[in-house]
């Protein structure tokens, strides 16, 4: 079920009414409702996916129970390996099996041996990369003794499948979300109002910003050879904005919906496009994933290795390659991970010692130096995304070679037309609101509190008007494919 669909517009109010009116006295019943509605939400795509999530949930629940019982390190290790093997095994089988087989076959044919292998035509279950990471982190945290295992299967299953964040995150940690399923939840007016605001802003980002950018991005990326260099650079920037609008929009709707049900999810995007360097950027972009990799991949690797420059470089490279590969079974994602590492690494060596004010402290507009740094980070990130968006490495090369062709300075204004001007106005509004609201959890959290009721409601209606009347052609959420 998509957030930007009539199905969800009916489904969510129904869940809300039953949840707060009929079941508010019993946490257990509320959890059952969340579990059932989450399975309906997920099964809306394909009921067969439910078998997988139920299996993953059961395995980690049982592993957790036994980890709580056993003190013996060897036994605990075995249990942890079971959880890792099951979760990564599912992920590997459904997401990466075809990729490895294809590359295996190609490698052999390169060596002159033709072998055939059945790729099984496996369908990728939506959101598998997100919930397997969520359950995996639970088992690891229980193993490390950071959290106590839960004995409440319903609460645990609801935690794994919690519908607002099930298919595209934020990837929640058990330490934050699981306890919220155990305590009594009471309706919080301010939390709910802020949730609605965040949903509206998320919808605006998805429907008005991302879907409208998609139109030009598809056009430009489909045939890069037809466009001038500047158009292609603008195309890569529009893709960066599209993916941000799409993904952070999804996160906003997810967090907002969870708030209405009395849950607090972690912030997933903290205005990354205003970052002055890549270190800051990766602290602000897809926070739930970057912190996951930091805590479960990077830190253990750093602990296991010597603290010298070579191991830092190696570990950073591994971190970015793995996180690139997490996005999908394609060489483009691996190369994108590598490019991201190469953009980040110089900062490790050439750390700018000059003190710079934090993003949240800034004034009405950025200073010139800040603006230049922000623009540099944004443009380099956008260019790196060419590899991410390309269908193959070859396609990415085509794109870059078209940028560097004789028509480098050409800007094809014709493809944008009148709708391009409208889009530019939306982007101006979008960045202005994001900049003004950057000290909140989401752009509208604190910004609107300063406004009077008339101004605030006018703004709400304006945003709703844009969502209803100026949305682009509906596109699937990009991160669903991961």
């Amino acid at each position, binding site marked *: 079920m998509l957030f930007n669909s*009539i199905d969800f517009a009916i489904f969510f109010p129904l869940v809300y009414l039953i949840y707060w009116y009929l079941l508010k006295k019993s946490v257990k019943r509320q959890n059952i409702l969340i579990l059932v509605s989450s399975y309906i939400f997920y099964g809306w795509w394909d009921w067969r996916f439910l078998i997988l999530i139920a299996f993953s949930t059961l395995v980690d629940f049982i592993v957790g129970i036994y980890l709580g019982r056993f003190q013996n390190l060897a036994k605990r290790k075995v249990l942890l390996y079971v959880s890792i093997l099951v979760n990564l095994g599912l992920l590997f089988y459904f997401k990466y099996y075809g990729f490895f087989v294809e590359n295996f076959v190609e490698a052999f044919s390169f060596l002159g041996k033709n072998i055939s292998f059945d790729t099984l035509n496996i369908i990728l279950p939506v959101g598998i990369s997100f919930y397997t990471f969520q359950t995996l982190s639970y088992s690891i945290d229980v193993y490390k003794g950071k959290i106590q295992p839960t004995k409440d299967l319903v609460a645990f299953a609801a935690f794994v499948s919690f519908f607002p964040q099930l298919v595209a995150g934020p990837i929640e940690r058990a330490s934050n979300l699981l306890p919220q399923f155990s305590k009594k939840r009471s309706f919080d*007016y301010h939390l709910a109002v802020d949730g609605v605001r965040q949903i509206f802003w998320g919808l605006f980002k998805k429907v008005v910003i991302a879907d409208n950018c998609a139109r030009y991005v598809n056009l430009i990326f*489909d045939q890069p050879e037809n466009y001038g260099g500047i158009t292609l650079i603008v195309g890569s920037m529009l893709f960066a904005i599209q993916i941000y609008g799409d993904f952070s929009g999804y996160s906003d709707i997810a967090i907002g919906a969870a708030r209405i049900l009395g849950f607090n999810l972690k912030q997933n995007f903290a205005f990354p496009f205003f970052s002055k360097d890549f270190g800051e950027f990766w602290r602000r972009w897809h926070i739930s994933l970057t912190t996951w990799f930091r805590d479960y991949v990077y830190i253990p690797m750093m602990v296991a290795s010597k603290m010298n420059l070579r191991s830092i470089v190696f570990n950073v490279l591994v971190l970015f390659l793995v996180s690139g590969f997490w996005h999908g079974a394609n060489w483009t994602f691996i190369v994108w991970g590598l490019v991201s590492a190469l953009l980040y690494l110089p900062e490790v060596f050439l750390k700018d010692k000059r003190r710079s004010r934090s993003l949240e402290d800034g004034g009405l507009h950025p200073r010139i130096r800040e603006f230049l740094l922000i623009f540099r980070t944004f443009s380099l990130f956008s260019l790196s995304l060419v590899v991410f968006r390309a269908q193959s490495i070859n396609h990415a090369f085509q794109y870059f070679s078209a940028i560097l062709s004789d028509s480098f300075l050409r800007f094809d204004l014709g493809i944008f037309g009148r709708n391009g001007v409208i889009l530019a106005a939306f982007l101006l509004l979008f960045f202005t609101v994001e900049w003004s609201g950057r000290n909140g959890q989401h752009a509208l959290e604190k910004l609107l509190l300063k406004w009077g009721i008339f101004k605030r*409601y006018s703004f709400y209606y304006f945003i709703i008007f844009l*969502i209803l009347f100026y*949305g682009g052609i509906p596109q699937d959420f990009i991160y669903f494919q991961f």
Partner: protein
Amino acid sequence: MKKFNIKFLLCVLPLLVLLSLMEVLYRRIPNDYSFKAQYLNEHAGEIETLLLGNSHNYYGLDPNYFHDYNTFNAAYIVQRTYMDLEILKKYKNELTNLKTIVIPIIPMELYFQKIEDAPFFYNPSIHKYRIYYDLDIPWTYGDYFEINSKMFLLRNMANTLTNYYLRHIPQTSSSELGWGTNFRWEDARDLALTGRETARQHEQISFPEYELEKGIAYNKQILESIIKIGQEKGVMVYLYSPPIYKSYRELIDDERVNRAIGVFQELDSTYANCVYENYYDDESFVSKDFYDADHLSDLGAQKLSKIIDLRLRGRRKNFEEQVN
């Protein structure tokens, strides 16, 4: 919670009123779907040749050139064979004089995804068959409303409302016998560009390579159901592959094309009331006959209508002799 609910309802109430008003006003505007449904409701008994199918028939066959039989063009843009089947099921008892059904089928169509799975751009108007034809289509409940399918695209809806109610611009483009009049050769699009666009779009809406068999089975089964309805009523079903421009043709996998044509020919030889003819690479259609790489212009439509009319006369005669 009460305060939140009341405030939220008050906030969305004006929107609900506005959207309801738009829905009511929008439905009152005569459109091609309502026109065709109304024609079938009122004149089904008079129709002898029924043109069904998608834009290839809608723009490609003008009933004015079909001389011997009363012909009506009930085809429309993106009207998949599934819809043709549903229309036939609905009107089969009223189509008392029906002698021939004509359906265009490009080879790639045999691989198109199920109608309910196809991307949005390829089935944006399914709901209109439910609203205006009153067909029972088993997909999402939201398709009962114009507003839902236009969700987030309400600007187009608002433009239509403004154009019709304020500027008095009609919102239909069909002739009185259902032919699509607005693909004039003077306004033709770039044939090379549209060739690439069409090839890409058709690839996007096709079943993936590993599920081609599924696609063939799905689309063939629908065609067979149409042919069987024809069989019951002693009606000839004339399937043909319309001409397409070389800029599109060159980008399609020949193997897939030949395989699809093989399936159509198999239908021709299996069912006595089914005829298949192929104009897919008919070189007599030149660039002026095309509006874009995938569709004929008004000039091309005139040419094809005359050819098919002639062919139908001959085929019809054979079929009647066979039946008698």
